[in-house]
């Protein structure tokens, strides 16, 4: 179902063609990074720390180097030391420890050998002497007065201080007078919340093949969300010129933010350089869980004041993100995500805190789910306490265009109210709650981003087209590029081949993240097509012998009075004689990314004997701006929702006291399976983004934000329990029920 504001009628945009890369993916031909093998290739395996925090006293690789099949061994000494403050210093340290290991799983050496088994045996034979240091695993320990340092390297961002600290960042926000507002409020509710680390859980482990030639040039094939970032980060970590490195994007088997940074490529490059052979590294699932970025865990305290008729007057609170062993911006981003209601009075602080656990990474709408869990839970409790409908309460306070975000800048045109109305008017919300079940509502949003993209559009001599971009396709974006090009050029979408090209075959393009690919790269494609259409009209004018101002472009053909329409393929056939190849490259730094809001509704049943929460029905309404390919918009909404349900109900990191993750497998780290979920009903709301030629907002991020509170609110209405800690796994629910 789609709810659409007035907009032009499109021929291709909004249709559902079979995606161009689909055939290869259903017959097993699509090439993911681990599917590539090169002649003479070696296999790389890491040695990883068994300790949560330790100084490396010595590493002896001599035994390993003498073992069968071993061709190269590297340690931290094989990599340049990047200066303090270098933007990739933490990346470099995380992928190969220098002097100190910061978490269990931290890489400190790697071996390349003829077979993976030989490399693994040699890695295990590397002798390391450690001097153990205190292991900090929780936010409270890390922030305690006199706490040992998690990472002596860390300085608090924006603080100006050069003192080592366990704080990553502190972002205070304030407007109005919260103290006076709470004093005047009819109702004030304050609650505390806690969430675990959760992993992005992409099914494809990180993988790459790297071949460094005797000329010093490196060919890299890798699975990533952005091969230009693989290139720049690899160059930085090795202190190489960027031009030495070519990165070819493999198909990517899921990323969700977790493949926006690198873990392997510089190590494979150094091993290849040392051995003179191509080196392939494929992580195991255990390595993925122990050593790649989960989303931060969190603790929050949120206090909200309201009038008796449901006007939210003040919010005050604190949220801490547990960012892992090195600094990142999770706390700062969390501050941006905190409040999507009008709140005239606001005082919030968001911080990032370090622990001796893996460096956290972006995960779909990074930092927003944790914040929305807290805020949306308290708002639900206010609605219940005041006897108000949870949607009516939110409608009364929802931000609209011009209202300030938590950071203060005004929201552009957004569709929050429209999403609330879509759920209010939905079949699901209008139907009675099933016997034995309860219904919850939650909302969320994400800002989305623009950034840099390039696109080249080539018209071929027979009138077909090739659309070349640098945005890895993680969920159907090639089809979206082709649809927008089809609309612009007026040709069939399947006469267009969308290609994701290597770093030497297309202009610089930022990572596929922040729901930016269809928005920003799509805009580059549209710009290139529009310039091509101008050129086509000029060529047609030459062929027809008229002035180019007299030519219009209608439905894939040049049209001028007193002439038969000249279709695109008739013009491309005469390209040579009218000025040469028809090709345009466009590049941009896109502004105007449009925030996407979502409202979710779910029915759950709670088994009071086992503590099992079953999701019976789930509906999501989300503002897509314009859905270029509605099936893949629905897919993003459904996929984000399923990940949010996993976050709410099952997924968590279980650590031993010494910092070892005890559930580092898909058996014990339990993501939702098909039998855990119902169908996920979707309502695409289309409030076009005025900054994009087709109104695109970007839809990938937001779906994961609302489910945490949506399910907690339903569980609350089913049991009376206000669950404050995620996941709401059966043992946790059972314990809470027994305490009730």
């Amino acid at each position, binding site marked *: 179902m789609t709810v659409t504001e007035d907009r032009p009628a499109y021929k291709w945009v909004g249709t559902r063609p079979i995606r161009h890369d689909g055939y290869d993916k259903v017959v*097993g031909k699509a090439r993911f990074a681990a599917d590539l093998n090169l002649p003479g290739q070696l296999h790389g395996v890491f040695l990883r720390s068994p300790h949560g925090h330790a100084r490396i006293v010595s590493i002896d690789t001599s035994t390993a180097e003498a073992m069968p099949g071993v061709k190269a061994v590297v340690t931290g000494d094989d990599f340049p030391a990047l200066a303090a403050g270098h933007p990739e210093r933490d990346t470099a340290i995380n992928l190969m420890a220098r002097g100190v290991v910061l978490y269990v799983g931290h890489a400190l050496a790697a071996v390349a050998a003829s077979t993976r088994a030989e490399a693994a045996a040699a890695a295990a034979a590397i002798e390391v002497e450690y001097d153990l240091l205190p292991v900090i695993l929780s936010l409270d320990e890390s922030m305690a007065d006199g706490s040992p340092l998690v990472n002596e390297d860390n300085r608090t961002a924006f603080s100006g201080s050069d003192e080592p600290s366990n704080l990553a960042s502190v972002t205070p926000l304030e407007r109005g007078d919260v103290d006076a507002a709470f004093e005047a409020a009819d109702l004030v509710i304050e609650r505390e919340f806690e969430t675990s680390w959760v992993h992005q859980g992409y*099914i494809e482990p990180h993988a790459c093949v790297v071949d460094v030639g005797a000329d010093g040039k490196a060919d890299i094939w890798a699975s990533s969300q952005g091969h230009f970032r693989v290139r720049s980060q690899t160059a930085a970590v090795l202190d190489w010129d960027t031009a030495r490195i070519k990165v070819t994007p493999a198909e990517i088997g899921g990323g969700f933010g977790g493949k926006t940074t690198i873990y392997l490529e510089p190590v494979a490059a150094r091993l290849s350089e040392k051995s003179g052979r191509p080196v392939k590294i494929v992580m195991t699932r255990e390595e993925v869980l122990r050593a790649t970025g989960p989303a931060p865990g969190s603790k929050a305290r949120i206090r909200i004041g309201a009038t008796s008729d449901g006007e939210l007057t003040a919010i005050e609170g604190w949220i801490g993100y547990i960012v892992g062993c090195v600094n990142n911006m999770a706390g700062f981003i969390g501050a941006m995500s905190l409040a999507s209601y009008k709140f005239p009075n606001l005082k919030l602080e968001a911080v990032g805190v370090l622990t001796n656990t893996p460096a956290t990474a972006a995960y779909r709408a990074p930092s927003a789910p944790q914040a929305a869990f807290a805020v949306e839970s308290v708002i639900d409790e206010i609605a219940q306490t005041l006897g108000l409908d949870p949607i009516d309460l939110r409608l009364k306070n929802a931000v609209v265009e011009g209202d300030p975000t938590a950071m203060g800048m005004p929201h552009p045109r957004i569709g929050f109210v429209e999403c609330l109305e879509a759920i209010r008017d939905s079949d699901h919300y209008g139907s009675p709650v099933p016997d034995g079940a309860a219904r919850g509502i939650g909302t969320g949003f994400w800002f989305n981003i623009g950034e840099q993209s390039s696109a080249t559009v080539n018209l071929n001599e027979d009138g077909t087209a090739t659309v070349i971009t640098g945005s890895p396709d*993680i969920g*159907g974006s090639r089809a979206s590029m082709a649809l927008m090009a089809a609309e612009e050029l007026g040709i069939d979408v399947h006469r267009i081949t969308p290609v994701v090209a290597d770093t030497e075959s297309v202009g610089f393009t930022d990572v596929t993240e922040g729901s930016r690919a269809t928005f920003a790269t799509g805009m580059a494609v549209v710009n290139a097509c529009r310039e091509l259409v101008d050129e086509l009209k000029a060529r047609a004018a030459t062929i027809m012998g008229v002035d180019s101002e007299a030519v219009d472009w209608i439905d894939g053909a040049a049209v001028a009075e007193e002439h038969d329409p000249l279709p695109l393929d008739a013009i491309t056939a005469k390209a040579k004689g009218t000025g040469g190849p028809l090709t345009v490259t466009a590049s941009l730094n896109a502004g105007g990314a449009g925030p996407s809001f979502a409202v979710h509704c779910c029915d759950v049943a709670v088994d009071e004997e086992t503590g099992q929460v079953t999701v019976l029905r789930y509906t999501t309404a989300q503002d897509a701006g314009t859905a270029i390919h509605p099936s893949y918009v629905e897919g993003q909404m*459904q*996929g984000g929702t*399923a990940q949010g349900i996993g976050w709410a109900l099952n997924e968590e990191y279980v650590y031993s006291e010494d910092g070892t993750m005890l559930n580092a*497998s898909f*058996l014990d780290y339990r*993501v939702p399976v098909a039998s855990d979920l119902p169908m996920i009903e979707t309502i695409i709301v289309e409030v076009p983004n005025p900054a994009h030629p087709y109104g695109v907002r970007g839809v990938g991020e937001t779906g994961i934000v609302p489910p945490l509170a949506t399910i907690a609110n339903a569980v609350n209405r089913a049991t009376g329990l206000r669950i404050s800690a995620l996941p709401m796994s059966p043992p946790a629910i059972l314990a809470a029920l027994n305490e009730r």
Partner: protein
Amino acid sequence: MKRSRTHVTCTVNGDEVDFLASDDTSLLDALRDELGLTGAKEGCGTGDCGACSILVDGRVNCSCLMFAPEAEGSDIVTVEGIAQGDQLHPLQQTFLEGAALQCGICTPGFLVSAKALLDENPDPTETEIRYALAGNLCRCTGYDKIVRSVQEAAVQLRGASR
């Protein structure tokens, strides 16, 4: 010291094949590295994700959990063997039309598991489909469009067999 390797003969996607494999090589690695059939994927190596699903004598198996020499004499079908020449299997077609894949890494395993289900049970309920596919993890789709595509393929296959 080179370890000895076993000579294995079996049928893969209708062709009789043979290869050498050491006793601790997984069938998945043999298919991918010895036979070049990279359609089956390794997502976990511990039988938890189903990306390596293949049919062995008609039954779904995680090929990462089988040793290659265990394939001796068996009839194996991988995702590369599901289509009939140029003619996609109805499941492949409905997965494409129903947008049942996003990144596509889990797709080969889902197609194999769904084929095994429909070979056995031509008219499964939604719940039966969900349980039959519960050994295959997908992190992109939330399963909705996968389940619907299997339902649609079942309808088409029943129509074709009438």
